[in-house]
């Protein structure tokens, strides 16, 4: 069974997913960071594949993408690093990446590699649902990869239902109409949106992302969903860290406790 399914079968609340950019802050940090995320007590690891033009991301993640590329990160390099990581890391792992680098690598070759190294799912923010259904769903399914879709406060109820019907992992709820890292705190308007989606009784679990940075925002998000995703705030921790292992663990501890 896919590790994402196993996770949500046993844990329904306060699921924490942590995003980091592969190759940041240093090229060879990828697997050590994954180990530290697991040791810290998070539930899902989301690895960002760096891209020169990440339009859905705010300045913090953009910078980390640029630095990762300067450090020499590439799809080949990432898969090299991930060979054998399953001996050390047991959490579900999701790759988040923009479509172009994956297309250049080759969609099928990419899926095959994901399966070989032990990746469980994908988040491809610029892959539209219809394109996914027409071109890629069968391929992803055949390699056991769960595809996650985003929804935002502007997404209509009809489309949320369609998305819910076309995925079986989790739904990534963008907390505001916003790029990553743009806002802090959670507003009443956002709470209304969280409640509205909660009351739709979707079959998929929901994780709230964008604007989650600490214990307080994690708890608020978790009150209205199955948990949350932290990206920009975690990148800042990595950026300022002198001891990655310790800082990653203590940051995650501070969020979940």
């Amino acid at each position: 069974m896919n590790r994402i399914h196993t996770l949500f079968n046993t844990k329904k609340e306060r699921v924490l997913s942590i995003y980091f950019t592969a190759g940041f802050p240093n090229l060879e940090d990828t697997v050590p960071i994954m180990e530290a995320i697991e040791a810290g007590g998070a539930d899902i690891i989301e690895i960002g594949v760096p891209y020169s033009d990440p339009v859905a991301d705010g300045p913090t993640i953009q910078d980390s993408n640029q630095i990762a590329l300067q450090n020499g990160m590439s799809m080949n390099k990432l898969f090299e690093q991930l060979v054998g990581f399953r001996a050390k890391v047991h959490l579900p792992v999701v790759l988040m990446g923009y479509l172009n680098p994956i297309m250049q690598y080759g969609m099928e070759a990419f899926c095959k590699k994901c399966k070989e190294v032990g990746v469980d799912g994908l988040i491809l923010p610029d892959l539209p649902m219809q394109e996914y259904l027409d071109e890629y769903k069968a391929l992803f399914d055949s390699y056991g990869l769960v595809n996650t879709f985003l929804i935002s406060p502007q997404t209509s109820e009809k489309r949320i239902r369609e998305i819910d019907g076309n995925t079986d992992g989790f739904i990534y709820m963008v907390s505001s109409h916003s790029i990553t890292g743009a806002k802090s705190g959670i507003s009443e308007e956002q709470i209304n949106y969280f409640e509205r989606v909660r009351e739709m009784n979707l079959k998929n679990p929901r994780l709230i992302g964008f604007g989650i940075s600490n214990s307080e925002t994690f708890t608020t998000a978790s009150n209205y969903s199955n948990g949350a995703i932290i990206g920009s705030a975690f990148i800042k921790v990595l950026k300022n860290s002198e001891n990655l292992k310790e800082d990653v663990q203590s940051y995650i501890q501070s969020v979940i406790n």
Partner: protein
Amino acid sequence: MIGVDERGYYGSFGGAFIPEMLHPNVEELKENYEAIMASPEFQAEFRGLLKDYVGRPTPLYFASRLSEKYGAKVYLKREDLCHTGAHKVNNTIGQIILAKKLGKKRIIAETGAGQHGVATATVCALMGMECTVYMGELDIQRQRPNVERMRILGAQVIPATSGSKTLKDATNEAMRAWINNPVDTHYIIGSVVGPHPYPEMVARFQSVISEEIKWQLKEKEGRENPDLVIACVGGGSNAAGAFFHYYNTPEVRLIAAEAGGLGVESGKTAATTAKGTPGILHGSKTILMQTEDGQVVEPHSISAGLDYPGIGPVHAHLFEVGRAEFVAVEDEDAMKSGIELSRLEGIIPAIESAHALYALNMIEYKKDDVIVINLSGRGDKDLETYIKWGGY
């Protein structure tokens, strides 16, 4: 048939590869733009402003001394005489009326050289709408007069400080701004790029260029169809406009002049079809310059308006099926053609348009062929570049 299909594709290029956060906006546009554009009220307002505000129709001018030199009948479509100095305003007039009909209150735009930014700031002033233009930090330094023009017109110019700090990054920033303000804001894209329906919508607004060429040529030559139409291609909006009504008239040769920069093999070029491969850029599948790993490569051209790593999906399709002939014009040659036109016809062209002029030296044609060159903009904005180049 060359044209967009229901899914927003031209052959294998196009589509709408956008984050879900933009889906409602793009869907709203897709659902409404055709009906709005077809409505009599829209057409009356659009045509009225093109005539009285932009100054259309622009002349189709028979360039006799240029013709003599090249041994063909060369006509210049004088988009340089449009208000604000280039064809860009045809599109911004159309899109701002559309934005009003959609009930939008704010306008955002990206700009490279500043021509589209100025054209957007202009129509926002005209309609009393708030305007924010994203421009690469480097381009802001390179194109000071256009930055100040936008400010005089009341627009806010925000520097794009990410990536290479040029047009591609300004486009990324404008898309991010749209994601952050999806409800009341319309994004006026300046070229035939971006997610469907933008490429088609912008091409239709610019298609007034070839619509006029047809009747003007009929008056002058007794026929609607020239033997060749030549236009420069960065993203490709002026070329799309000049080619539009000839896409499916195969006896009219379409010539697209890309920016060769310092040479196609120099590593400093914007010749997308020569150096690019299929991929996704700014929401559509097209041809773009990229590394083997799929990272977008920074282009180079002496002309800021052609300094873009991709081309519109319709041009990728014209290239793929061989409907248009693509040539790469190097910086130096474009500059020489700019001076040549100035001396032969008394017209200082934009350096973008000078690329189209130089194409005359790179293609085969018959004596007395009727050739229409789309003179997309005037050279005022490029004075600094002409002075620096100095070869006159």
